[in-house]
C-alpha cells in the first residue's frame, strides 16, 4: 500500500506541472459539484419523505378521529338524546343521515389514502433503506392492520344495520324495541371506537416508524456528505501540498539554476571587469604611446626646423672664430676687428638662443589657459614651419578679418595648426602637376566662435579616406612618414581641451587666383572667451 502510494507520488511528481494543476482543479470542481448535487437531492428527497409522512399518516389519522367523533357525537349522542326523549326522531333523522354519509365518506377517504400508491418513499430513501435493511415488524403490522380494517368494515356494516333497524323501529314508534337496539348500537359504537383507536395507534406507530426511518436516511446522507466533503477536502489538501511541494522543488531547482547562472555571470562579470580594466589600461597605454609618437614626430619636424635655423648663424660663427686665427697669422688682429666680430657673434648667438626658446616653448605643455590672439598663434606656427614651406616652394597667404582673442592653450593650438599645415604640405608635395602650391588661411568671427579656415590646393581628400581622417592610426603616408595620429590628436585637443570643433571637407576654391582648384578645407571653431562673447553681444 505504502509502496503504491510512493509509486503514485513518484508518478505524480513526474507529470507536467500544468497537468497537476488541472488535476487539482478537476478534483475540487468535481467534489464541489457532487457535494452540491448530493445535498440538493437529499434535501428534496427528505422534504418528499416528510410530505409523504404527513399525507399518508397524519391526514388519515384526522379522518379516523372524524369517524370516531361522528360515531360518538352524531350517532351515539343523537340516539342517546332520542332515548332520553330530548329530541324526536324526526328531528334527528337528518343528523343521522348526515352522520351516515360522513362516516362513509371519511372511511372511504381513509382507505383510499392508506392504499394510495402515490405515497411511495423517494428513490434515495428506498435505496438507502435497501442498503441498510432493517428488521421491522412492518409485515406483521400489515396483517394486523388488515384485520382491524376488516373488523371496522364489519362493525360499520353492523352499525348501519342496527341503525336502519332502529330507524324502522322508531318510525313504527316501537320505542322499547328501538331502545334495546340503541343500547346495542352504543355497544357497537364503543367497540368500533376501540377499533378505530387501535387503527390510529397503528398509524401513529407507523408514522413514528417512518419518521425514524427518515431520520436514519437523513443521518446517513449527512454522514455520506460529510465523508465526501472530508474526502474532497483531504484530497484537495493532499494535492495542494503535493503541488506546493512541487512548487518548492521547482522553485529550489530554479533557485539553484539561477544561483548557478548568477555565479557564472558573476565570474564572467569579474573576468569581463578584469578584461575591461586591462583593455582600458592598454588603450591608455596606446594613447600614451600615440601621444608620445605624435610628439616625437612633431619633434622630428621641429628638430629639422631648428637645425636649419641654426645652420646659418652657426656657419657665420665658425667663420668668425676662424677669422681670429687668420688675422693673427697676418698680424691684422686689431682692436676694432675684434670688437666688430665679437658684436656680430653675440648677435648671432642671441638669435640662436631665441630660436631654441621658441621651440622649447612649443614643447612645453601649457598648464593654464591664457588669453591670446588667434592670429599670433597662427603666425607663430607659420614661422615655425616656414623653412619647410619655403623649401618646397609653397606659398601661403593669411587673411585676418578681425582681431580675435581667445582663452586656451596656446601651444596646443599651435600644435594643431602646425599639424594641419604639415598635412597640407604633404598633400601639396604629393601633387604631381605643376600648379602653384598654395595654402590659404582665413581668421574670422562666426557667431560666438573664432573660426580658422585653412585651405590648400593639394587636390582634396579621397572620398573613401574622408570619414577616417580623424581616426587614430589612420595614415595614407608611408610608415616612415606618418604615425597617423596627427589629426586624431588635433581633434582631441580641439574638442576636449578647447571645447571647439574641427571638420574637414573637399571644396573647389580659387584661393585668390584665377584658377579653380580642388581643395581641402579644414575649419577649426573655438568658442570665444566669455567676456569676449559678452562684449560681442553688447555690440
Amino acid at each position, binding site marked *: 500500500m505504502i509502496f503504491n502510494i510512493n509509486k503514485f507520488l513518484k508518478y505524480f511528481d513526474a507529470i507536467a506541472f500544468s497537468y497537476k494543476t488541472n488535476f487539482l482543479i478537476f478534483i475540487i470542481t468535481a467534489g464541489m459539484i457532487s457535494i452540491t448535487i448530493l445535498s440538493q437531492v437529499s434535501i428534496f428527497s427528505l422534504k418528499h419523505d416528510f410530505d409523504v409522512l404527513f399525507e399518508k399518516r397524519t391526514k388519515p389519522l384526522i379522518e379516523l378521529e372524524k369517524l370516531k367523533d361522528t360515531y360518538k357525537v352524531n350517532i351515539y349522542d343523537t340516539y342517546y338524546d332520542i332515548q332520553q326523549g330530548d329530541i324526536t326522531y324526526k328531528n334527528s333523522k337528518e343528523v343521522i343521515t348526515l352522520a351516515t354519509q360522513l362516516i362513509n365518506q371519511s372511511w372511504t377517504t381513509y382507505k383510499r389514502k392508506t392504499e394510495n400508491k402515490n405515497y411511495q418513499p423517494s428513490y434515495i430513501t428506498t435505496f438507502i433503506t435497501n442498503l441498510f435493511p432493517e428488521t421491522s415488524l412492518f409485515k406483521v403490522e400489515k396483517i394486523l392492520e388488515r384485520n382491524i380494517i376488516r373488523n371496522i368494515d364489519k362493525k360499520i356494516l353492523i352499525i348501519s344495520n342496527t341503525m336502519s333497524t332502529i330507524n324502522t323501529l322508531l318510525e313504527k314508534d316501537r320505542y322499547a324495541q328501538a331502545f334495546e337496539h340503541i343500547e346495542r348500537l352504543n355497544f357497537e359504537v364503543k367497540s368500533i371506537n376501540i377499533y378505530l383507536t387501535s387503527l390510529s395507534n397503528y398509524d401513529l406507530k407507523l408514522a413514528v416508524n417512518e419518521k425514524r426511518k427518515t431520520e436514519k436516511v437523513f443521518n446517513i446522507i449527512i454522514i455520506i456528505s460529510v465523508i465526501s466533503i472530508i474526502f474532497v477536502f483531504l484530497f484537495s489538501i493532499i494535492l495542494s501540498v503535493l503541488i506546493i511541494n512541487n512548487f518548492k522543488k521547482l522553485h529550489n531547482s530554479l533557485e539553484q539554476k539561477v544561483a548557478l547562472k548568477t555565479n557564472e555571470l558573476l565570474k564572467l562579470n569579474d573576468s569581463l571587469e578584469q578584461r575591461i580594466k586591462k583593455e582600458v589600461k592598454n588603450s591608455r597605454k596606446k594613447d600614451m604611446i600615440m601621444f608620445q609618437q605624435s610628439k616625437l614626430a612633431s619633434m622630428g619636424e621641429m628638430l629639422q626646423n631648428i637645425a*636649419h635655423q641654426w*645652420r*646659418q*648663424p*652657426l*656657419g*657665420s*660663427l*665658425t*667663420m*668668425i672664430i*676662424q*677669422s681670429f*686665427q*687668420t*688675422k693673427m*697669422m*697676418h698680424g*691684422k688682429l686689431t682692436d676694432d*676687428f675684434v670688437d666688430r*666680430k665679437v658684436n*656680430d657673434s653675440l648677435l*648671432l648667438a642671441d638669435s640662436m638662443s631665441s630660436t631654441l626658446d621658441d621651440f622649447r616653448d612649443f614643447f612645453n605643455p601649457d598648464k593654464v589657459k591664457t588669453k591670446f590672439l588667434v592670429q599670433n598663434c597662427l603666425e607663430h606656427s607659420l614661422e615655425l614651419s616656414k623653412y619647410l614651406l619655403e623649401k618646397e616652394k609653397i606659398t601661403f597667404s593669411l587673411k585676418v578679418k578681425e582681431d580675435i582673442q581667445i582663452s586656451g592653450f596656446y601651444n596646443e593650438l599651435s600644435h594643431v595648426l602646425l599639424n594641419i599645415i604639415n598635412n597640407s604640405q604633404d598633400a601639396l608635395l604629393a601633387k604631381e602637376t605643376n600648379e602653384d602650391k598654395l595654402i590659404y588661411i582665413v581668421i574670422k568671427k562666426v557667431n560666438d566662435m573664432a573660426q580658422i579656415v585653412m585651405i590648400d590646393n593639394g587636390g582634396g581628400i579621397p572620398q573613401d579616406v574622408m570619414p577616417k581622417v580623424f581616426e587614430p592610426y589612420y595614415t595614407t603616408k608611408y610608415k616612415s612618414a606618418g604615425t597617423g595620429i596627427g589629426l586624431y590628436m588635433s581633434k582631441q585637443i580641439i574638442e576636449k581641451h578647447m571645447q571647439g570643433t574641427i571638420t574637414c571637407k573637399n571644396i573647389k576654391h580659387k584661393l585668390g587666383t584665377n584658377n579653380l582648384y580642388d581643395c581641402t578645407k579644414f575649419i577649426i571653431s573655438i568658442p570665444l572667451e566669455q567676456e569676449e562673447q559678452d562684449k560681442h553681444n553688447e555690440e
Partner: protein
Amino acid sequence: MKNKDLNILQSFNILYLEDDKNLRLHTKDVLEDFVNNIYTVGTSTEAFNVLINNKVDVIISDILLENENGIDFLRYIKEDKNIQIPAILTTAHTDTKYLLDAIKLKVENYIVKPINIKELLNTLHDILLPVIQQKEIAKNNNVIKTISVVTDSKQVEVVNFIFNNLNDDNMLVASYSEIMEEINISKPTLIKLFKELAEKKILVKVQHKTYRFDDKSLNSI
C-alpha cells in the same frame, strides 16, 4: 697651412657666391687677407657680371641660394658659356643628389658647412698650385733656352742627356763612350764636365759607369 705655401694665393682673384649676408661678410673678412681680390655676391646674376668684367681664378659657391641653385649657375657658365674656371661648392646639405651633380660638373671640392677655413684654403692652394707651377715651368724653360744660347751648347746637351737617362733612383748608368756615341763631344771635355759635377756633388760616381744625381746639392749652390 702647415706645409702649404698659402702665399701663392696672393696673386689670385676669387668669386664668392653666398646668399647669407652674415656669412658672406665674415668669410670675406677672412679670405681677403689671403688673396689678391675677393668678389662677394649674393645672386648668380651679380656673379655672372663679375665673371665677365673681371679676371676670376676660382669660384666658391653655395648650393642653396635664395630662389636659385649654385649648381645650376655652374652648369650654366661651364656648359653654356664654356667658361672653365675651377669651382668649390659649399653647402649645408649632405644630400648625395647634389654630390653627383657636383662630380659631373668636375667641381674641385665640395665643402660642407660650417666652413672650415683651413680646408677651404688648402683646397684653394691645391687648385691654384698647378697654375703657379705651370707658370714656373714655362719660366724655367725660357731660362734654360736663353742660357743654352749664350753658353757652350755641347755641355747643355750632355746635361740634358744626363737628366733624360736618370732612372727612378736618380741613378745614371752610362759610360763616356756611350755618351760620346750620342753627342758629338770630345772625351776631355766630357771628363772635365763630369769632374766639375762630381766636385759640386751634383753627380757623384757610385761605382763603375754608375752615377747618382743629388738634387739637394743644387740648393747649396
